[in-house]
């Protein structure tokens, strides 16, 4: 194996005595104090995450937009520059290469932010689709660092710390900014279900930005809270709700696949699935007894195994055991009685919607 990578904020995490674990090849902070406190800080105030492990890929050239459109499930050609669009790269069979954010920079540049664990795979896959397009593809992941500032006080924090008024920056848009003289790309996006920003800059500039936010009392949050937060907002994680085993339709994210926009890789399979129905669906589950339905645990209807938990927690915000699970279509209807196999017991529960919690995004 290659050597474990460090983010430019690694020293900061060690100084804070974060519990560190290897994730996607990086030594990452899992938790600084405890996950519930970090989780609540983001839901009620503001927290920050070092997500410098995320991958950045730049598509450049005369066909940059057309190429991005041809490999991406969501609509981008009708969107203005400065917009961020969420969607998927698909294999020909409709299953998911990765989920990503597409930043529409200008006529000749499209900036992709992809999962850390998929960067190498994504880059290779994207390069392999470029035939016939006037584009170059660059993997810039090692040149970019990223902080996610998340929570209802994120906008106020940016104003107070950097004298930067972001009140008119709409949800899922971005701009180039200077933070105490450090140039950065800043978008109103995130992975927590709260308002907030994602800040991309160089490995050198990121440190001063982190320190300024820390000095203002922003709570550092680890990947542990990042997962509990995104889960409550029913945002998918690659390898769990979405993977190369399911399509976005099966995963319940049809809204990010615009099958009517024109051709894109994987579209034919999605059209067929929409028409004929999915064999399986990712659903919400709630348990009636206190127990914790974790990823990988089997889901049953009667004696029959009908699926598997993809992510589950004792929800920190709601205090109830909830999960997302991939189940056979026949058992995906809301209210369907199921059980989850937890150690030696079958814990009763039911299928429910995935609106575990109201998202507090900035309304444009």
């Amino acid at each position, binding site marked *: 194996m290659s050597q474990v990578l460090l983010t430019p904020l690694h020293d900061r995490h060690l100084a804070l005595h974060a*519990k560190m674990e290897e994730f996607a090849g990086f030594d990452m902070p*899992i*938790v600084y104090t*405890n*996950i*519930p406190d970090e989780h609540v800080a983001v839901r009620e105030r503001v927290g920050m995450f070092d997500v410098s492990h995320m991958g950045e890929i730049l598509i450049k050239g005369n066909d940059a937009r057309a190429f991005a459109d041809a490999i991406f499930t969501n609509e981008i050609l009708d969107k203005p520059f400065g917009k961020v669009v969420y969607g998927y790269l698909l294999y020909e069979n409709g299953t998911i290469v990765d989920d990503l954010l597409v930043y529409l920079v200008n006529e000749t540049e499209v900036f992709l932010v992809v999962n850390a664990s998929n960067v190498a795979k994504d880059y290779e896959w994207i390069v392999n689709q470029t035939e016939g397009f006037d584009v170059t593809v660059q993997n810039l992941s090692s040149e970019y660092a990223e902080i996610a500032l998340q929570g209802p006080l994120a906008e106020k924090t940016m104003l107070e710390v950097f004298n930067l008024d972001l009140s008119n920056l709409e949800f899922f848009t971005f701009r180039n900014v200077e933070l105490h003289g450090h140039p950065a790309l800043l978008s109103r996006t995130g992975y927590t279900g709260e308002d907030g920003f994602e800040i991309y800059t160089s490995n050198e500039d990121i440190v001063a930005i982190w320190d300024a936010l820390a000095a203002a009392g922003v709570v550092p949050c680890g990947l*542990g809270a990042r*997962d*509990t937060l995104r889960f409550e907002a029913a945002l998918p994680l690659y390898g769990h709700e979405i993977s190369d085993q399911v399509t976005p339709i099966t995963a319940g994210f049809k809204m990010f696949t615009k099958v009517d926009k024109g051709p894109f890789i994987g579209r034919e399979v999605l059209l067929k699935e929409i028409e004929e129905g999915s064999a399986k669906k990712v659903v919400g589950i709630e348990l009636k007894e*206190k*127990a*914790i339905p*974790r990823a990988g645990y089997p889901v049953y209807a009667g004696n029959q195994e009908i699926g598997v938990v993809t992510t589950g*927690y*004792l929800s*920190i915000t709601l205090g109830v055991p909830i999960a997302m699970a991939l189940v056979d279509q026949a058992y995906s209807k809301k209210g369907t009685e199921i059980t989850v196999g937890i*150690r030696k017991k079958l814990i009763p529960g039911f299928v429910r919607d995935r609106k575990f919690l109201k998202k507090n995004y900035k309304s444009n």
Partner: protein
Amino acid sequence: MSKAVEGLFYSESHEWVKVVDGNIVLVGITDFAQSQLGSVVFVDLPEAGTRLEKDAEFGAVESVKAASDLISPVTGEILEVNEDLIGEPELVNQDDYASWMLKVEIDDPTELESLMDAAAYGNFTE
């Protein structure tokens, strides 16, 4: 730094045993275990009357992120379960040596000799 209390017995799976009186013992998890787990949010324990076998799984302690099996350090019968931990699992983080999980009547007190003392457990978790 995690602590080990003198006078208790310790297993390699990070449970402690405290002899209360003769064959009656309390069982809990160590400070090292709780610090490794992080915030405990759920403790899954068997009912009083359940038989325990040494080295067999008897329940689980769950943090936000993960479930860890509890492995019995003794053989015997559960007399009582600490119900406080069901309602307040975070007690395990706050004072794990006071937060016993099970009160057990053990079959054979000499079985405890196979466990570690505080010094040995301290070395084990170095």
